[in-house]
């Protein structure tokens, strides 16, 4: 056994020498500060924009050198958790506000309250700061965001004589329900539907259900301030469930939305959309890039605001963020880099690369972000109605979402359970999950 271990150790040592890549924790050399920036940019334009800005920053700041490290949205939480636990986290972290909660409460992220430059604080509106404020601190700079939009087949809407909504004059949810009926057709008279009004891709139903419920005045999570800290409560009344009930009706009663769409992820609905099988698909704003890339040449499409409820076209968003690791010894330098990335011109570049919207007021003035083409202008107009997603800052939300809410919403939309069944899972079972995080 000892020989086997010796063999292993010798082999390992030899390989390490051969590979020549043993890690060392020294990030200062010759008086320079070296910072690792974990970026989750994934589209080519966005990666190029990030790398260009990093190179520019390094050139302009000879004493602070940032190293671009590529991450992936697919596994960011596990990767960060392990590197935080192991004390090897990157200095600057690109993530999403939704994912910050557990890391902020766990003490892994630096509170940026005292580090934030005044002009950056002013440039980003308060609702965006609210989305990263928790546990008495600010744990990220929210720099990009994307609303959910209704992407529609222009030809089908015009043929049915339907009014094209604008952010100033959107459809109401009732109107949308009627329009979906008008757009649902059995074209060849064989008794089966050939064209559906809308396809709800509900493979991941929770975030969009929770975020869209804001338009009807829903507030699924409330925060009670107690002597023992903030307590999150789940509530699921008529305002919270109005949009979910509408989707349920469209799938199971009106049949204006196909049941097969429920199991699809957002991009899975696109082939059917291009083929005219679905007249409208609700998708995140950045999906326009895929639509622009994949749509047939003669395909006309519009980007419309989501329908309005009693609170207008309000919806919740979870912005993308830049945070600083608590373990880094160079918080000031890390903040300088984040501030550089968040300068209006740079923020606008990053937003355009990802087909998203910048959070900064100045970056939002970029003409390219306000042009009509590809629905940029519609998104820019909707951005004024965005609020922090109700799920932000709720400890235990990932478990609530994965274990309870996802299957519960899927059963409800599929018609396998009624509203009371959904409510019971979200509230009664859900509160028990949240309580475990609030002891």
């Amino acid at each position, binding site marked *: 056994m000892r020989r086997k271990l010796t063999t292993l150790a010798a082999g390992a040592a030899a390989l390490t020498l051969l590979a020549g*890549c043993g890690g060392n924790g020294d990030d200062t050399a010759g008086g320079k500060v070296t910072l690792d920036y974990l970026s989750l940019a*994934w589209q080519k334009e966005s990666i190029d924009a990030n790398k260009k800005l990093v190179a520019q920053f390094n050139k302009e700041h000879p004493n602070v050198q940032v190293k671009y490290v590529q991450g992936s949205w697919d596994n960011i939480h596990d990767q960060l958790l392990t*590197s935080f*636990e*192991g004390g090897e986290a*990157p200095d600057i972290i690109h993530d999403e506000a939704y994912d910050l909660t557990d890391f902020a409460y766990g003490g892994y992220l630096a509170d940026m309250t005292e580090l934030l430059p005044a002009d950056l604080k002013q440039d980003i509106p308060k609702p965006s700061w609210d989305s990263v404020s928790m546990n008495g601190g600010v744990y990220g700079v929210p720099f990009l965001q994307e609303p959910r939009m209704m992407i529609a087949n222009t030809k089908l809407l015009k043929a049915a004589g339907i009014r094209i909504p604008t952010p100033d004059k959107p459809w109401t949810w009732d109107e949308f329900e009627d329009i979906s009926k008008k757009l649902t057709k059995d074209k060849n008279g064989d008794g089966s539907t050939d064209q559906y009004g809308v396809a709800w891709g509900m493979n991941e139903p929770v975030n969009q259900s929770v975020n869209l419920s804001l338009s009807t005045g829903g507030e699924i999570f409330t925060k009670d301030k107690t002597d023992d800290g903030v307590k999150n409560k789940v509530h699921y009344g008529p305002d919270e469930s109005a949009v979910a009930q509408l989707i349920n009706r469209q799938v199971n009663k009106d049949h204006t939305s196909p049941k097969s769409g429920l199991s699809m992820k957002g991009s899975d609905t696109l082939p059917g959309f291009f083929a005219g099988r679905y007249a409208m698909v609700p998708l995140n704003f950045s999906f326009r890039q895929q639509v622009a890339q994949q*749509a*047939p040449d003669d395909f006309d499409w519009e980007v419309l605001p989501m329908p309005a409820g009693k609170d207008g076209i309000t919806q919740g968003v979870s912005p993308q963020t830049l945070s600083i690791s608590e373990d880094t010894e160079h918080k000031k330098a890390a903040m300088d880099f984040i501030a550089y990335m968040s300068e209006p011109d740079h923020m606008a570049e990053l937003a355009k690369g990802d087909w998203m919207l910048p959070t900064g007021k100045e970056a939002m003035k970029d003409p390219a972000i306000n042009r009509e083409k590809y629905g940029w202008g519609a998104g820019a107009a909707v951005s004024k109605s965005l609020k922090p997603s109700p799920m932000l800052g709720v400890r235990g939300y990932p478990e609530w979402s994965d274990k309870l809410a996802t299957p519960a919403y899927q059963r409800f939309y599929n018609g396998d359970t009624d509203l009371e069944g959904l409510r019971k899972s979200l509230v009664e079972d859900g509160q028990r999950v949240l309580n475990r995080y609030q002891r």
Partner: protein
Amino acid sequence: MSTVGTLRAKRAAGHTGQYLALLAYLVFLAFPLLWLVSTAFKPAKELGSIDPTWLPKDWTLENFRVAFDSQPLLHSALNSLIVAVSAAVIAVAIAIPAAYAMVRYKSKVSTAGTAWILVSQMFPFVLIIIPLFLVLKNLHLINSIGGLIIVYVVWNLPFSLWMLQGYVKAVPISLEEAAAVDGASRFRTLVSVVFPLLTPGLVATLMFSFVTAWNEFFFALVLLKSPENQTMSVILTRFLGAEGVADLGPLAAASVIATIPSLLFFALLQRRLVSGMLAGAVKG
């Protein structure tokens, strides 16, 4: 005579059925790979079509251009190759003598060892990743290809050992006894008699270890930080965005590149996978 004819007809029908079933199974296995290759050569507009075609209507290399342009595919493939070959060779080199000893020298240790092999397969990655991370960190092996090779060797070793034990058991001990009678030393017997007969087993185990290491994702993701050290499986996830959105064409192109080394490895070694080497070695 008619009975013989009927029997022959039945046998022929049976063979035809077997071949058809085999063909269906081959198609089932090959379909994902063929679909992947087809996708890699399709332009974006065809990928968004509701009527997918078996072959691209307009063949394009654009997906490969974008894949190579946006990610360091060749460098990561080289990293994967170093890691997978090293891990496979070391795991098998350790497993051969260990498997031989466990089969030929029965003792409580070998029984406990066998039980441990089985138990070790029951631990999920997520359970061990943080302790493993801390151990490697203390050894300064985080973010190191050498560290990843060690992890893969340890991870592959139990199953390699399990596989090789079966092959060692299949070598009749009478062959070793015959070699001893002819005056061969223990070492000579192993080198000239046992190891050649184990070749198919060694090749199968090497292939298993190589493919496991080549495809492994989670350890590589967590343990390798620097872009210059990352392996192919990690790089492939870069073509995925939030909410499962994929840059499908370049992802398929990169995946095709990622399968080539495994296919080549199999092509090179599969001739060694011949069975029946032991046929006729022992009388009776």
